[in-house]
């Protein structure tokens, strides 16, 4: 591969990595178009990762070519630089693979530990079907509802199941089902991986944050489509009262129903 092409690929990676998060992690864009933000971000991430890996492999290939090609010319600096860049590419690729592997391994360990903890709650709960969703009802005096993507289950406390009106309960379950069906765990994991690979890079942490928020809003929107934004907002308020944790989501849903 020509040196000019390699430089262009690295430039492409740098431009996408720097500009995509700045454009996409805009609060208004994430709030109004969460799906589009995620789609464009994943396309950008794939293109930039492909460009960088291709450039690094090409640099390694050029360095290796120096050792198998007989060159009788008087060039000295060229081959030396090719080798230096080759070694830098090997080191960069090694660091990327290592960081990616370490982050993946950490994610898997946390998932496994969590599965073990929830297995005991799951075994103590009642496996049932509510509003068309497979749910594990567990005895608790707290208002808890959560999806565990690694086990593909929804868990609901008896307190919440008994205190929510049927239409509000259906909206709450639709929210959790959307997390499972749309595989938001994988979307968030991609954000966590991007942040783990480039921890000091503020753009990657901003994008991981936007990913977290976008998946939460997408689940709200999916539940709102099945019921209505007002019902989802009412379900949040009925479940958690005036908790500050839900204030912004409730306000967004009310704004949606008004428009």
């Amino acid at each position, binding site marked *: 591969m020509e040196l000019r092409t390699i430089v262009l690929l690295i430039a492409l990676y740098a431009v996408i990595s720097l500009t995509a998060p700045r454009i996409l992690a805009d609060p208004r864009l994430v709030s*109004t178009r969460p799906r589009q933000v995620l789609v464009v971000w994943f396309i950008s991430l794939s293109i930039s990762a492909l460009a960088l890996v291709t450039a690094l492999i090409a640099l390694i290939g050029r360095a290796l070519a120096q050792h198998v090609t007989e060159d009788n010319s008087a060039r000295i600096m060229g081959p030396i630089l090719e080798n230096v860049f080759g070694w830098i590419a090997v080191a960069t690729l090694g660091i990327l693979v290592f960081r990616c592997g370490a982050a993946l391994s950490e994610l898997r360990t946390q998932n496994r530990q969590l599965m*073990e903890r929830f297995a005991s709650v799951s075994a103590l709960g009642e496996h049932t079907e509510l509003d068309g969703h497979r749910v594990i009802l567990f005895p608790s005096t707290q208002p808890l509802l959560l999806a565990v993507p690694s086990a593909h289950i929804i868990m609901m406390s008896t307190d919440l199941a008994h205190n929510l009106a049927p239409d509000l309960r259906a909206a709450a379950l639709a929210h959790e089902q959307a997390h499972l069906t749309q595989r938001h765990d994988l979307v968030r994991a991609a954000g966590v991986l991007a942040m783990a690979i480039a921890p000091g890079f503020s753009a990657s942490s901003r994008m991981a944050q936007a990913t977290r928020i976008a998946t939460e809003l997408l689940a709200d929107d999916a539940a709102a489509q099945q019921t209505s934004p007002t019902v989802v907002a009412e379900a949040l308020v009925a479940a958690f009262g005036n908790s500050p944790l839900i204030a912004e989501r409730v306000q967004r849903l009310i704004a949606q129903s008004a428009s």
Partner: protein
Amino acid sequence: MTTSRSRGELESDIMNILWASETPLTAKEVQARFTDKVPAITTLITVLDRMKAKGQVVKEATGGRSQTFAAAKSRIDHVTTVMNSALQSADDHVAALMLFAGNLSDEDRAFLRQAIDNN
């Protein structure tokens, strides 16, 4: 004798047996109440001791060599404790759990508030 069950499941089954009993049970009595996948007595004793160390069961000496076990907490208290511990152990920023209350941090909510204020 089949013992193909995860540690978490075995502990839950033991807790269910202890809750169903009005009196404390010996390890042999616990084993006798398993209807399927009956665990070995040595496995049961090991798991019961581990559960005692975790504060899930209480052990009492009855005189002689036998010891009895009883649930340390009521069913609802136990599930609440396990659930709270699981929720606390989950890093909010990791994709392991999706809470209806949301996994948004203070910074995430400030980000969202910006969007609402700009509309």
